[in-house]
């Protein structure tokens, strides 16, 4: 058990250490509201992280999530402004995410173009399309119902946190205990054997990307409904943050293993680290260097912990 959840426990320990230190030295960090903001900011990243975990476990990568999020956000905002009821807006965001994810998935699974190339292209092309279409104008003002999803509180925590947790738990269950979920792991672990075992690998790959898109659509709704306008710059650099969280969370970047729980803890750790820089008053100019070094140390430590670095040969780079 220790072995199986080793990575998750390591992150949990790091998280506890950091949060513990902050709570002791910074009284305001202990505040319930601070905790709630951290959880809320982590919620949508965590939801995107679910999709990214699936994609990476399946042996692929998706760097277009940030651009997809911006597209979903802008179209959702535009619909809301046109008077569409909120449930329709949410459905539209989900459908749009699903559609863009399906486009990625179709190009990757059926036309067999490497995923990094496809999503690199959609990353650039979608962002270009946004600027072309909006000319930089933000979507606002938004109708009063817009912020319902983002700002309603249940038991002291905003709705996005609950939805995020539900999604993480559901995804953890689906990945661990359903046939499609297990097929994702099988595919990432040994694609050729997966084919021989009768798994429709193209179909699984397609759905992994489509689902990743759908989750981006959901994350969009958790994120932008907290604000009274949709900015065209939404989602910039999101892919970097999410991939980092997935890797810190212990998912093998080459596929086959990884958990949604690890990713969610990774997201939390990065969110708390980022807040810690402000709370501890660390000079913002060193911000990026510290975050990068942190990732390097976390991943290296894990590789040393599991003894992978001592393997003499044959370990894929």
């Amino acid at each position: 058990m220790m072995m199986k959840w080793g990575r998750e426990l390591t992150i949990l320990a790091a998280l506890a250490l950091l949060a513990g230190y902050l709570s002791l030295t910074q009284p305001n960090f202990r505040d319930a509201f601070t905790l709630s903001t951290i959880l809320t900011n982590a919620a949508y990243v965590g939801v995107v992280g679910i999709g990214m975990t699936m994609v990476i476990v399946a042996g692929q990568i998706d760097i277009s999530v940030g651009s997809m999020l911006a597209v979903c956000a802008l179209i959702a905002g535009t619909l809301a402004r046109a008077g569409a009821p909120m449930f329709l807006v949410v459905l539209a965001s989900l459908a749009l995410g699903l559609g863009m994810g399906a486009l990625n998935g179709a190009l990757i699974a059926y036309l067999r173009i490497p995923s990094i190339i496809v999503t690199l292209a959609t990353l650039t092309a979608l962002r270009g399309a946004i600027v072309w279409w909006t000319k930089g104008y933000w979507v606002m003002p938004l109708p009063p119902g817009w912020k319902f999803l983002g700002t309603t509180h249940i038991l002291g925590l905003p709705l996005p946190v609950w939805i995020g947790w539900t999604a993480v738990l559901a995804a953890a269950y689906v990945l661990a205990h359903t046939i499609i979920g297990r097929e994702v792991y099988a595919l990432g672990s040994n694609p050729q054997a997966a084919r021989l075992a009768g798994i429709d690998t193209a179909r699984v790959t397609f759905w992994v990307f489509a689902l990743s898109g759908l989750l981006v659509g959901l994350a969009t709704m958790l994120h932008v409904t907290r604000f009274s306008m949709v900015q065209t710059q939404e989602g910039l650099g999101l892919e970097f943050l999410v991939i980092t969280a997935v890797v810190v969370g212990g998912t093998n970047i080459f596929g086959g293993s990884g958990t949604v729980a690890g990713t969610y803890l990774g997201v939390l750790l990065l969110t708390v680290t980022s807040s810690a820089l402000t709370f501890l008053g660390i000079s913002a100019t060193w911000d990026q260097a510290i975050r990068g070094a942190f990732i390097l140390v976390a991943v290296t430590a894990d590789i040393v912990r599991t003894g992978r670095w001592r393997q003499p040969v044959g370990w894929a780079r």
Partner: protein
Amino acid sequence: MAEPLLQLRGITKQFPGVLALDGVDFALTTGEVHALVGENGAGKSTLIKIISGVHQPDAGRIDYLGAPATFPTPRAAADRGIAVIYQEVALFPDLSVLENLYVGAYLRPLRTTGRRVDWARMRARAQEVVASLGVELDLGAPVHRLSAAQQQLVEIARALLRDARVIIMDEPTGPLAQPDVERLFSLIRQLRSRGVGIVYISHRLEEIFAVADRVTVLRDGRRIITAPVAHTSRDALIHDMVGRTLDALYPKTAVNAGTPVLEVDALGKDAALADVSFVLRRGEIVGLAGLVGSGRTTLAHALFGIDPPERGRVRLDGIDARVSHPGQARELGIAYIPEERQRQGLVLPFSVGENLSLAILRRLSRLGFVDHAREAAVARDFVRRLDIRTPGINVPAAALSGGNQQKVVVGKWLAAQPRVLIMDEPTRGVDVGAKAEIHRLMSELAGRGLGILLISSELPELLGMSDRILVMHRGRITGELRRDEATQEKIMTLATGAA
């Protein structure tokens, strides 16, 4: 004889430029082990693929369970109870044993329609099957921690879980040590008694006599003969396979061992290698026997610098040598033909010529630039000397047969002009003709003064080719047998630590 389970009649399969199968008949009855033999390229794999739904025959008919059948996809064949255990293990290293048993055919909970995986039911059934095989398997362990033999057990258990009526085993003993082979055979007999039909493919003829009921020989896409094994002999089979009479399979010539070329003194590496000492002389072939995991390959890797030793001394021609890296080993004159030919021995997409020159490319370079003309000359020279059958030196190594691929690996190391040659399972998966050629080559090289350390799990090969045999058990050498005193029983006694 029992009822026919699977019957193939007049199966023909044409690939562009090659007639892979030409009107082949093949029958399998329930509770039968039917061996399929032939040289590489004879059509064995194509036949298997037709049975398992990978290929469709151009002509001929298949009857399965008494009715005409077609298998349009591997899945269709699998669903009807035809399982294949491939040479290269088709498992999922990251997943647990339990899960590997079920990938592609997960069980769902009874009485629900969901896509949920019913772990409890899967575990219960798996335990039942594993217990019925009389073996132990930790269902929770990830497969990458299992030994080759255990991984094969997983594959067999997987076939049984799917109620396989026909199990095709393609070179199943390749990665196994002798006791594991024995265990596999008893397992096969057990399956036979349950009424499973087994198609057994192997290059090791001894195994066919040990386990099979009938044998079919294919050559050049045609069936040569089908006969009960009791009515045939090794030599007859070889003759049918090769199409001519083969000289001795183990053409060992007697040599007078020369001065010691390699002296190993108390070599050690944590628990895997415990104070191993031995001497290898010029012209000598020393066999290294032992079970998988006994430390044979660890010893080879230590000597070759892949995984350098922690303790002990190595002397080459009487001079102390430290090998901390394979490049150093090469420069000192130690060569190593690795166990896994395709993974460790060859760069498959590289051409035959590029593979032959790989270890000596720097020697073929002037001022860092490769002298392509010299490289080509060297490559052609080795293709000729080792009789590597290839259309040319710029054909990718992947296009060659196993035996010829192995000759490329040998050629690569002979080009480096070694004084010590370590051969780790040099004839695994190599057909009988090429096997004899590799053995002849070993004798010839020893005759020219090379010291050869031969690691093999195939006892007849060790007995046939070695001047002396060292037996390892749990990281130490437990005994040494002269050629004239060695027997399979003595080796096994030492190898299992029973002595």
